[in-house]
């Protein structure tokens, strides 16, 4: 079962299908609105944001999964697709932003400019800009230009983007939406476990005190 899953997840096609299918669901109201859908564009906007958060949380979980279970084939398979899934998160964020732009368009962009200055929207915009920078530096050549270390540090901004996205999502509702916990909670747990494991393994093995080794 795990071997089959691993084989399936190693395929780029599987990942493409998994990334594109939710977009079909999110964009459907625009092409076939249900008669009871009061504001199809708003439905699309919310769904795109939701998928963006899920994809971002998912791609960030790949590394801790591999660190925690290095020999697990599924984790290895997933880590082949970090770039593709990461760019997918940016694509959803951009679509979400575009839907918002259309949603506030009232013959001009006055409402847009007024709203974008509010913390709730600035936070979302911040996450989008980070994902944009990470996307344009996701090509192999960028690693050469920047140098491995600088590139790695730059791409650590993905964690900041995730924190901003979670904040933005929580702030979107009048009452705290539990989905933030479902989406970003597991990632937070994995990250804590990963940091803990990396600390333990980077310490000298127990029983080998400096006195003994000398």
């Amino acid at each position, binding site marked *: 079962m795990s071997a089959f899953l691993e084989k399936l997840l190693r395929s780029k096609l599987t990942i493409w299908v998994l990334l594109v299918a939710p977009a079909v669901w999110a964009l459907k109201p625009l092409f076939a609105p249900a008669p009871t859908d009061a*504001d199809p*564009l*708003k439905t699309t906007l919310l769904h795109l944001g939701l998928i963006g958060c899920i994809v971002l949380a998912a791609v960030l979980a790949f590394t801790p999964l591999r660190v925690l279970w290095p020999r697990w084939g599924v984790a290895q398979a997933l880590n082949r697709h970090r770039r593709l899934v990461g760019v997918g998160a940016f694509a959803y964020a951009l679509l979400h932003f575009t839907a918002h732009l259309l*949603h*506030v*368009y009232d013959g001009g962009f006055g409402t847009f400019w007024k709203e974008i200055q*509010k913390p709730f929207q600035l936070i979302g915009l911040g996450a989008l800009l980070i994902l944009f920078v990470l996307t344009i530096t996701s090509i192999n050549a960028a690693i050469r230009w920047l140098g491995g270390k600088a590139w790695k540090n730059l791409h650590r901004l993905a964690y900041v983007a995730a924190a901003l996205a979670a904040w933005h999502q929580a702030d979107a509702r009048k*009452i705290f939406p539990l989905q933030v916990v479902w989406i970003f909670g597991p990632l937070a747990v994995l990250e804590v476990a990963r940091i803990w494991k990396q600390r333990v393994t980077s310490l000298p093995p127990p029983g080998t005190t400096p006195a003994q080794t000398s």
Partner: protein
Amino acid sequence: MHLRFPKAWELPESAATPESAYLNRRAILKTLGLGAAALALAPRGLRATTAGFPTRVNADYRDPALKPTSYELITSYNNFYEFGTGKEDPKPNANRGWKTEPWTVELTGLINNPIKIDANDLVTKMGGAEQRVYRFRCVEAWSMVIPWDGFPLSKLIKFADPKPEAKFVTFTTFNDPKSAPGQRTGALDWPYFEGLRMDEAMNDLSFIATGIYGRPIPNQNGAPLRLVVPWKYGFKYGKSIVKIDFVAKEPVNTWKAMQAREYGFYANVNPMVDHPRWSQASERVIGAGGAFGTRQKTLMFNGYEAQVAGLYRGMDLRRNY
């Protein structure tokens, strides 16, 4: 000279069904469908509190420029947190055995005529129902146009006969966690509670809705008695009212208690005063403009400036939001 001889199968323009008749056929089919649906729903519809009050259209409140939102959308896109926080939640959840008939409402507080009265008896005492078409503006920057049936709140206040000390009127929503799944969560501080200043409540526009489009107001819209104050944001419209209390001091309404920075006591529609998270300058028009929808400029006091601006003369509306 160019001569054209029509083929035998070509029909003259005059034989074509006029577009209006063609469209009308659809309307008839739709009505038939609605009729069948109404028949299926009849047991609830006929038994509903506030059923059986034929509505008289009040021509003073029928602006021909206002195009009412469809009954379907008005009754399926609702904020009624007692039945879930999603807008699609109230329609199914408020119709799973929650009883809105019979219904008793209590008039109490600083009045000469305190009474517990059946909702139907109250409507009868108020002289039955009239219909008014009002703009509806949600604080979330979307709007509808709704034909409400009901009676002016001022009639109810005169019936209650307030004492001079009564300066505010408060409206308490039902509290029944067994029937209302939302009330089993801590989403809000139940029961939902709203209030108006006495002069606001006495304004001609203030209304108690008992129906929509001439039919008893559906559960998800706040059956059987719902406050309607069209120059204010929708959250001021207390639903499924069980108690109307006349008090001396400004009450703290539910959303103000929850989030005073975002929601105030007055909640007057005001395109100049933004919500902390979004602009109130314009609004999405529900059910208009196809899939991509449309936005329109929000009007001061939701277009009722002439009727209500006087209530707030000299007040800083930025502070008293």
